[in-house]
């Protein structure tokens, strides 16, 4: 069961996912979806790390992926907590309604 996928394709996929994530962050108005998009970006970069690790035969790529996983978990938990707070205070998850820190 050994199908070899070239590293370039995987990195391309990672770049695609990352771009999708960015577009998601920019165009979505709901904070939950924005957070989701950020997760996609994180995972895209994790994928790039894994691909790079397998390409060079180094363990560092997988180490970094584990690190990213841990960080993403932490980030999601804090992010969701903040979102909950925002929803409590503003009764809205629309990012455009939350423009308070301008100027």
């Amino acid at each position, binding site marked *: 069961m050994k199908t070899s996928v070239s590293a370039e394709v995987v990195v391309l996929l990672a770049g695609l996912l990352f771009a999708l994530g*960015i577009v998601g*962050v*920019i*165009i979505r*108005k709901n904070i939950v979806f*924005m957070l989701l998009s950020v997760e996609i970006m994180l995972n895209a970069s994790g994928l790039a790390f894994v691909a790079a690790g397998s390409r060079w035969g180094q363990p560092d790529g997988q180490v970094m992926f584990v690190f990213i996983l841990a960080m993403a978990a932490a980030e999601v938990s804090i992010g969701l907590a903040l979102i909950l707070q925002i929803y409590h205070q503003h009764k809205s998850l629309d*990012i*455009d309604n*939350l*423009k*308070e*820190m*301008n*100027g």
Partner: protein
Amino acid sequence: MLMDKYLWLIPALPLGGFFILALIGKNMSRTWVATVGAGSICLSALVTFVVGGAFLSGMPENTVYTQTLWTWFEVGEFSAKITLSLDVLSLVFVFVITFIGALIHIYSTAFMEADRDYARFFASMNLFVFSMLVLVLADNLLLMYLGWEGVGLCSYLLIGFWYEQPTNGNAARKAFTVTRIGDAAMAIGLFMVFQQAGTLVVSDIGANASVIWQPNSATVTITALLLLAGGLGKSAQLPLQTWLPDAMAGPSPVSALIHAATMVTAGVYLVARMHTIFALSETARLVVAIIGAATLLLAGLTALTQYDIKRVLAYSTISQIGYMFLALGVGAWTAAVFHFMIHAFFKALLFLAAGAIIESLHHEHNMFKMGGLKDKMPVVFWTFLAGAISLAAVPLISAGFYSKDQILWYSWSADGGSPVLWAVALAGALITATYTTRMMILTFWGESHTHIGHLPGKRMTVPLVVLAVFSVFAGFIELPHNFGHFTLFSDFLHPVLPETAMQENIPSEWLFQLLAALATLGGIFLGYYYYYQQPARIASLRQNGLLVRLYRFWFSGWAFDALYDRMLVRPFVFIARINKSDITDKLYTGISGMTGEMYKLLSRTQSGSLRWYIMGLVVGAILILGIQIML
């Protein structure tokens, strides 16, 4: 006996008087104020007589009393000492200042009796006499400048003596500012003198002048003209004459002392004192003569039109000083100083007498509202008459004739003289006689228009009488060459001032005297005819539109005030006013304003929209990556 160690007393006494009156004058009784105020000047006059007598008796010629009090300041090669020096020229001035000054102070003790600021008046007057004495006794130009500015200050204080009237304050300010223009030029003149001569000591400059300067070189001409500018300001000559008529806002004794007898002749003193420089520049002397001639004519014609008695006298003063400048310009140094002395006597007298009249008529200055005072104020009338004949230069019997005749004669025949200058001076003589007669007739003849208050007392009339005697008889110390050839005064001055160089082939002096006498008599007749015999003629002259406009033009002092107002004062005030909030500050408020604008611009990007932020982030990242790939 050598009296030079007492020289310092002459200016010190008035200074002491000033300090006493300024510090504790408020708490002194009027008698004490008068005693200190007038007493200090009388004592100073007494010291002058004693020191002057010692100076004159038994001294070899060319002696100068000098007394160094202390070194004022000394920097590098520059040194200025507080040194007094008395020679014959300064003796004449010191005599006039202290003697006439003492008489005027005595007169003032009565004249100012009712004024609430009695002490301030005498303090200022004493300070003035002190400054004036320093001016004429100074042995170097810097000390002279101290006196020069000091008299300007006192003139300011005394013109604005009744300060609650805004016009008086403005007149005082005008006097100070206009003379200051001349003073600034004179200061530059001092710098030039120092740069070229390396000293400001008058006698050193005089001794080495011909070594220091090339005759008729541009430098000596410029130096002389800069010094002259100072003299023009103080002596109210063209083009700086406009302040003197307004200066009549001061009390009459002030006009008599400062604006007739002493301070306004400081310019004459300066030119005479620095004659060694002026002698080296023909151009400068020509300028002096032309300015003198132009001023005497212009001021004389203006005096014809005035109705305020003090303004007539003021313009007449300008005109008479014009004669002195004319004499200086043609090189008749002694004649100028002679006319200065005689003029001091009769003009002080005229101002004091006018002051007595004005006082008695409840501060009425308008001659047309006087009249008929001949019998009501006999003492004033006779003394005024004595002054008037001297001013008009009535032949033979007045002192003014001898001094003015001498100037007329020299203005043609002296080295720098010319027929044109003489003709102007002669016309001036005619005009002088006319306005003097007009003034006499309007004031003393005809019907009286104003009720007369109290008559002047002894303290006022005695100085008048003394001055009247001098106005009539003082001329006999210097008689023309063709009769008597009695030259006491000019001989007296010759140690300091050189003989007047004469032209060759000049017409007989008799002819000039005859013409001068005719001019005077003609002027008197004109005044008599139009103002006494045929007053209706004046009214018919008023019908002529051209004459009326000329009259108005003369009356305004040849529109100099309006000219200066348009040319200098208004632009200055305009510029000052529009720039009140300081245009250079705009530079800095501009910088701070720009910072503010930038802040507003940039803060617009901080919209709070998270999605824009991310957009910016991404675009930035792409840009950086792109640039990196491209390079």
